[in-house]
């Protein structure tokens, strides 16, 4: 049923229809509305046969999910930002043990300075954790990816995170088609664990593995993600057939067929980019956009296929690999090894800075004219950083940069954004 609801609520409804048996909840913005909604769904009985555990930390949340999953239960949790980092050790453990936990990450920046707003620094930092990472463009897709996510995770015995932009999506009220329980039941079979803690058939899970077999174990983990490259599109196709919607898959391209310039991006910003692309197309510019849904596994072939024909690629990232620049770009370059084209990395929307059509319009125009720096920070307040840099050059103890900047910004800091 099509409903006008908040993204978090939509995701909660979708997750509930997947019948998770154990949900671990710990509050952190902007994820909190999701577990709040799930809590009411459990209370109301809409989500029956589910243990809702209020844990004391994200580390515990993931740990509880690990235990539940190993005991054969379908486990779900949600987090963001610092919370994701706080559970990192457990993240690697869950994937190492091959436990198909599904987790929502309401993408948010990482401090210091503490910042509750959206970017992809949190999820990007876990790109090598062994988890499958799927990025949602809309709230509809966020919901759909959870349903597909459980299928994929459980078929491969791999944990999977659905990344959705914090606030931008989680707090946005827009139309979401919430599928019927029957539909989801037909699409998602009950969890059949590959291994389970069972007194009638005991096994030891989580052995210590030495040099003699560790490489093999890691290779097998990699191989699973390679299998995911096949499975993700297959599941997406099946989903489309069953639900009549295109969601998920590895990548999704928009007006790229004859495009000379192709923008690569992840998540909710794709919508704004598409509008901008349309504007530029109206001006006769041959530009398109490639949305990467599956960042892990990274679809090298699919990306190469789409980009190979273009003259230039602009990778727009909501994260920064400090000291080198792009994270997604590095992967895109890998996909393009041997292909010669202009490549630009644009770091945009850090810590919730809005990515506006106006800025994008200007940015792409620059790119098309190849006047862009290889690494560009969208809407960077040059004056501000110059001033700070000058300050630091002058006095050794120039005080905390963040506060200085705020002082310089003055009232602007309290402005909407």
């Amino acid at each position, binding site marked *: 049923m099509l409903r006008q609801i908040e993204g978090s609520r939509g995701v909660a409804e979708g997750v509930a229809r997947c019948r998770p*048996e*154990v949900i*671990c909840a710990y509050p952190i913005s902007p994820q909190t509305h999701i577990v709040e909604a799930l809590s009411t769904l459990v209370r109301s009985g809409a989500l029956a*046969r*589910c*243990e809702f*555990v*209020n*844990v*004391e*930390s994200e*580390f*515990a949340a993931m*740990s*509880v*999910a*690990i*235990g*539940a*999953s*190993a*005991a*054969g*239960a379908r*486990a779900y949790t949600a987090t963001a930002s610092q919370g994701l980092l706080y559970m990192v*050790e*457990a993240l690697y*453990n869950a994937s190492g*043990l091959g436990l198909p936990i599904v987790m929502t990450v309401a993408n948010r920046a990482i401090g210091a300075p503490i910042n509750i707003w959206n970017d992809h620094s949190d999820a990007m930092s876990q790109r090598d954790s062994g988890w499958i990472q799927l990025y949602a463009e809309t709230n509809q897709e966020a919901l759909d990816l959870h349903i597909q996510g459980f299928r994929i995770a459980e078929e491969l015995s791999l944990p999977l995170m659905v990344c959705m932009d914090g606030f931008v999506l989680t707090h946005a009220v827009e139309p979401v088609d919430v599928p019927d329980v029957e539909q989801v039941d037909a699409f998602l079979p009950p969890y059949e664990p590959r291994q389970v*803690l*069972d*007194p009638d058939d*005991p*096994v*030891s*899970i*989580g*052995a*210590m*593995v*030495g040099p*003699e*077999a560790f490489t093999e174990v890691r290779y097998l983990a990699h191989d699973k993600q390679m299998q995911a490259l096949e499975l993700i599109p297959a599941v997406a196709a099946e989903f489309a057939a069953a639900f009549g919607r295109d969601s998920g898959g590895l990548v999704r391209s928009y007006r790229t067929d004859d495009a000379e310039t192709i923008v690569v991006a992840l998540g909710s910003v794709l919508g704004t980019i598409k509008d901008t692309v349309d504007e530029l197309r109206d001006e006769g510019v041959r530009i398109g956009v490639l949305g990467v849904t599956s960042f892990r596994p990274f679809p090298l072939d699919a990306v190469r296929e789409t980009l190979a024909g273009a003259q230039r690629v602009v990778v727009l990232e909501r994260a920064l690999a400090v000291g080198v620049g792009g994270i997604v770009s590095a992967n895109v370059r890998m996909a393009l090894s041997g292909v010669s084209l202009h490549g630009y990395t644009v770091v945009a929307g850090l810590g919730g800075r809005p990515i506006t059509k106006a800025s994008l319009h200007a940015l792409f125009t620059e790119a098309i004219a190849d006047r862009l720096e290889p690494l560009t920070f969208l809407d960077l307040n040059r004056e501000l950083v110059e001033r700070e840099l000058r300050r630091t050059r002058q006095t050794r103890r120039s005080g905390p940069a963040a506060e200085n900047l705020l002082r310089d910004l003055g009232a602007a800091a309290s402005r909407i954004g």
Partner: protein
Amino acid sequence: MPQQQIRFYQTGSFVVGNRLLDPDQRTVQADMRRTNSLNSGHRACQGCGEALGARSALDAVMRATGNQMVAVNATGCLEVFSTPYPETSWQIPWLHSLFGNAPAVATGVAAALKVKGRTDVRVVGQGGDGGTVDIGLACLSGMFERNDDVLFICYDNGGYMNTGVQRSGATPPAAATTTTPAVGPEPGNTFGQGKSLPLIAMAHRIPYVATATVADLRDLEYKARRAMEFHGARYLHVLVPCPLGWRTPSSDTIRIARLATETGVFPVFEAEDGEVTAVSRIRHRRPVADYLRPQGRYAHLFGETPGEDVVARIQAEADRNVRTFGLVDTEVVR
């Protein structure tokens, strides 16, 4: 004339039972068909107290639950020596996740079993003192506070022995470890206020908290069995001497544990809903020096420049235990 039911043994404190008891009164460890939850071939050191404590506790739990149990293990010696690929010594469904999260993982298992209607299957979490009183404390406290249906067992050997004997929050005052020289009156550990996890557990008002040692396996078994009679969060703190870290002969493991109780250094008791309900009285009270002297980790207290003052402080701690828990009827040190 009270009938001496058990030959030889101090009533209630004999090790494992014997032919003179009715079979149903005999301990699990006396049973030829005992389950050996932790079987032979593990790689624990000679005379390992933890291996002994773990098998005894889990065998008792298996007996109490008709083998319907699952164990979750924190990282540490027990985990490393029991499950190096390609072999495991466990006979039970067993899961190792991380160093600091065993209680939470156990909660997860319990939640899964509950939702699946398998409440007949009981969950035991276990770890060393590092995984319990230090890095695992937050998860443990959360598990307690939610009163999840988990029995958590801490095998306390007073340090990070797996990594080569470093100081932990459970390392007793003046004990030497490889990291204490920097902090304590060289080379021993500092005197803090101590960190009694049993008391911390009791502060959570959980249904059952108990302490035990490998010097009295029957008592340990009893407490493991008793714990399984409760639902909700339960905690069992077991003193398990470590020949490596305590620098004692491998054959002294039990003797040293016994001395820990007979000196009052380690009070053995039970508590329900946060209140002490039973204590194991000291049979022949001994001065703490009798417990300290045989241990290499306290050697510096008995060298050319003996640390009488330090020993006196430790004695004072023991005396406090004796008073707090009423460990002896009469205040005479034999």
